[in-house]
């Protein structure tokens, strides 16, 4: 079961990484996002809530997903203490995700497809990490 869960974890982290890279690329190129569902993604990603601790949320996400892939591979070969760190960070990521979803729903009243895709990915990552043996 362990290797199946780690495989899923790595896939989700890769999807999350590609999602954040897309957002970063569009931001750097100053091109508007094309939202498959929803209203105006650009209003959300350009709002004052689009950064934490002097870093853009997409950059924080990218760092998180890269570290997650490294941790998953390390966990597979060594196991042990890294799991606790993974649990803590995935929990923090989920809290940030819930906060950002609240901001979209209640404060901005606009939804961003890519942000919510990241939210779903983060939720599944958290659930998988919590079930890791």
């Amino acid at each position, binding site marked *: 079961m362990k*290797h199946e869960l780690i*495989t899923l974890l790595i896939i989700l982290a890769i999807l999350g990484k590609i999602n954040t890279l897309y957002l970063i690329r569009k931001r750097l190129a100053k091109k508007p996002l*094309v*939202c498959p*569902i929803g209203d105006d993604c650009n209003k959300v990603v350009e709002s004052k809530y689009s950064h934490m601790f002097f870093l853009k949320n997409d950059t924080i996400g990218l760092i998180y997903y890269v570290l997650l892939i490294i941790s998953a591979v390390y966990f597979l070969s060594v196991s042990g203490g890294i799991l606790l760190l993974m649990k803590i960070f995935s929990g923090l990521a989920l809290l940030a995700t819930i906060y950002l979803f609240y901001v979209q729903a209640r404060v901005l009243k606009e939804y961003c497809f890519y942000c919510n895709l990241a939210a779903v990915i983060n939720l599944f990552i958290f659930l998988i990490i919590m079930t890791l043996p």
Partner: protein
Amino acid sequence: MKIHKDVLVSLLLRAGLAISFFYAAISSLIYPTGWAGYVPDFLTKIISLKLYLPIHSIYDFIIGFFLIIDYKTFYVSILAALTISLIIIFNLSILDIVFRDIGLLLMAIALIVLYYKKSGSKK
């Protein structure tokens, strides 16, 4: 709420296929013994499993990656459809397992149609 159906359908098809290719790529790297049984006998006579599985993993990963980033999707979908067809053909004896691949094959064909029709020509 505005919905761009074309973009959404393409994204869902590409993501669905890409996840399957990513799973095969990563799982066979992590746990090669679980995948060795799906390799046709004639291939193992030409190339050793130890060499073939990582090469196939990289190939699967590249297909998944190109699909998800929407790079040359028309051609990559053709490649994906051919790959899945071969998997089904060479594993007909375990159809109870590979019957789901027929669904994946049709998804790849749907992408080929979608990207062929999109601009009236190949994309």
